[in-house]
Structure formats: C-alpha cells, structure tokens
C-alpha cells in the first residue's frame, strides 16, 4: 500500500491505495469521486504535467485533477 494526495479545486484528500494504482484508476474511482466531487471528464497532473491513465502513481505523489475541456459536438 502507498499514500497519495489528490487535489481537486480547493479540496484535497490523502488516501492509501494499492501499489499498482494508476492515474486511470484514480480518475475512475468512485471513492475519490465521492470525496472530491469530480466527474468522468478529468485530466491528472503531476507537477503540472498531464499523466496518461496507464501510469502507476508514485508513492507520496500529490496529484492534481482538473476538469477536461470538451469540444462542441
């Protein structure tokens, strides 16, 4: 297990997750969604750099989630 901190707007949460927990797992996690109130359309940033969903989140990381911009249908 490892600790990660996730920020969304003015809210943040620190939580223990499995060692192989990825950015994609975070973006789809109902637990984190319920705690921070983000929707299905987000991007995950580490030190300001957007991360791909398949990348494992490093232990102790502070992940920032942002609302992803959609385009006009």
């Amino acid at each position, binding site marked *: 297990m490892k600790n990660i901190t996730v920020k*969304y*707007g*003015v*809210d943040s949460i620190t939580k223990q997750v499995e060692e192989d927990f990825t950015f994609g797992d975070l973006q789809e996690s109902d637990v984190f969604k319920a705690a*921070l*109130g*983000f*929707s299905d*359309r987000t991007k995950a940033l580490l030190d300001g750099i957007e991360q791909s969903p398949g990348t494992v989140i490093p232990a102790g990381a502070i992940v920032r*989630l*942002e*609302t*992803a*911009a*959609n*385009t*006009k*249908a």
Partner: protein
Amino acid sequence: METTEIIIRDDGTLVERTLRERELDAGPAVLEALTQGVSRDIRNVMSIPDWGLVHASAGFNHTLWSVAIDRIPLHARFRLVKGVLVPAFASASDLEMPLVWHAPPEVRLAFVIQTQEHEDGVRLDGNWLFAFSQSNRGYRLPLPNLHDDCRICTGSFPDHYPTGAEAVLASLEQFRKSKWNADLMRTAEQSQRFFRFQATNETFATLPIEAEDWTSLCEKVSTDLMEEVVL
C-alpha cells in the same frame, strides 16, 4: 566568498565541505524567464455600467479579466410548467424571450475574459462563466453553450481589439445578446430547477432555485484558469 565546514557523520567520519558564493548577474531576461508562470492580481481595474467592477490577473503571456456579475441574460425559449416559467433550450416551438436571471447572494458568478498582447492591441482568447460557492468551490451552471471547463460557446464575434477594456466590453455585449441554444445541452431538468421565473404585473421575477443546495444542480469544476479568477 568561501566558507569551509567540518561535518561529523553519524558513523564518526569527518567530512570537509566548502561552500563558494558569488552574485549572479541576473538580467531582465533571466528574471522574466523565472517569473513566466507568475501572475499578479489587480483589483478594481475599471467599472462597467450595468455590470460592475472588473478585476484583472496579469500574467506574463496573458491577462485574465474577471467581472463579478449578479445576473445572466437568458435569451432563450421558455415554457410554462405548473405556473412557473422555465427554459426549454431544445424547443423549437415554445416562446422565445429575453429574460434576465438574477443570482441569489449565495451564487457568486464570475464572467471571465482572457486576452493576450497581439501586434498593436490584444487578442481575445475566450470567455468563461463560473459559479462559485461561499467556500470558493467552482461550479459549472446547468446551462447549454457552456463547455465542461465553463468556457462559453459564444458564437462568432471579433477577436482583436485595440485595448483589453474594449475586449471586455465586447465580450459582455456578446454575452448579453447571445441566444442560448441546446448545442451542449445534457439534461433540461437541472436547468429548469435552477432558472425559474414568474410573471408579475410588469415583468418576470426570478424565483428561488428549486434545491436545498444549489450546487447539487451543478457540476464541480477545477481548472488552472479558475485559480486566476479574482473575486
């Protein structure tokens, strides 16, 4: 200047460390590079009649103008449901009216304009509409023509202006006269519980939002641009 330190490590070994300091000639170019991501808030830059005060966040590459508005012009189609007039954005047959929705005090609206220097003037990069709670959480209102990141689908209007002030004025005017259609509409239910009107003798009065907590009808939003909004 040079200083020497003798360090005793935990295992008892002695280590000599030499520190050398010299002043760097950090010219304007170096300082500019170091402060590229820094923006400065400037409050009360100007006052726009009928709208209010405009604040700015001036960055290296762009300026973000924030207007704390207290109403939203809703030029859309409306339908009467149980005596209450609600928007029917996707309708083609209901009555089209230019109603103005007045925000209750707990809903803090920010109309945001981003500009950047361009040739002899400024280029308008976009308009956003955010709703903030009293605790500074940002939300996307249940409105069509709003992207997920709260960028407004404004329709086409000029994007080059001699000054930032003119870009702000033009953006507000476009916001005032634009029609709200169903381009980015998801569900009408939240809109119809949020934006409600009742006919009075002379006009249409804004009714309270039909929810205990108005944020339950909105989507929580977080973007890097939002952090530069000056409320």
